[in-house]
């Protein structure tokens, strides 16, 4: 399956961009579960998921997939800081989603998100700008 077929299958109107030896597809309303199922079916491996802040209080989420040595990156946005979980489709996502939840308090619907790198009593989202530890200020470097 080549890149164009993947794009059409996902119903994305955008175009693939080649940046720094990797392919990028920006789709603000990507159907994450459909994408994950498709990628698993064609034998692709989930490398990781990257989250980063965008100014409007939402998060930019990038799914990085490895397809026979090529790196395909699906870029999408969260809706009210939530995305569906793909852990049941690709078990790798288990720790990845937990870590993103710890860092940014992004919710992945359809699963429990126990803390991975934080203590149980800590609130998630330490990478958010306005986050403060109890008794310790975390907003400065």
């Amino acid at each position, binding site marked *: 399956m080549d890149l164009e077929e993947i794009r059409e299958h996902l119903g994305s109107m955008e175009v693939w961009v080649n940046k720094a030896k990797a392919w990028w597809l920006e789709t603000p309303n990507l159907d994450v579960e459909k994408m994950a199922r498709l990628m698993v079916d064609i034998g692709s491996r989930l490398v990781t998921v990257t989250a980063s802040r965008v100014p409007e209080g939402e998060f930019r989420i990038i799914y990085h997939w490895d397809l026979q040595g090529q790196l395909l990156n699906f870029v999408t946005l969260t809706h009210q800081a939530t995305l569906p979980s793909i852990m049941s489709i690709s078990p790798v996502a288990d720790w990845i989603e937990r870590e993103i939840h710890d860092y940014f308090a992004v919710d992945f619907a359809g699963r429990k998100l126990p803390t991975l*790198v*934080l*203590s149980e009593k*800590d609130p998630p989202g*330490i990478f958010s700008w306005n986050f403060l*530890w109890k008794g*310790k200020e*975390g907003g*400065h*470097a």
Partner: protein
Amino acid sequence: MRLIKKLVSMARRRSPWLFHLNTGGCNGCDIEFSACLAPRYDVEQAGILLVGSPRHADILCVTGPVTRGTRAALETIYAQMPEPKVVVALGNCPATCDVFAGSPAIEGPLDRILPVDVYVPGCPPRPHDLIKGVAQAVAILADQQPRDRRIIEGVNQ
């Protein structure tokens, strides 16, 4: 009585048992620590032994900047060690937090939590420096009366 005191001091000089504790460092110091056990540095010739249980140890060797996750364990392990005991801060991390200074996940440096007796600087310190640091710790151990409990509590607050 004086003879016994002298004998004990001699024994403490010659048989320091170490407990190694990584409080969330990068492993660099820890590998160098393991390298000290290996043939080239062979610390056993000086009677130094790495023990698995803090209850057997005389010297606590701490590496890493003390993360939030390890602080409780660090305090428990320090309390489990029988007196007299000495704390050695191995590497820059327990001394200053090194590159990790300022991170919200760090509770260190170590001297905010425990009384530190010897600092061994370096990122990571060479095995020679580690051995030198242990030698300093041993000298403290040999002449040390059991440490006043109040001081420790004062530091903990």
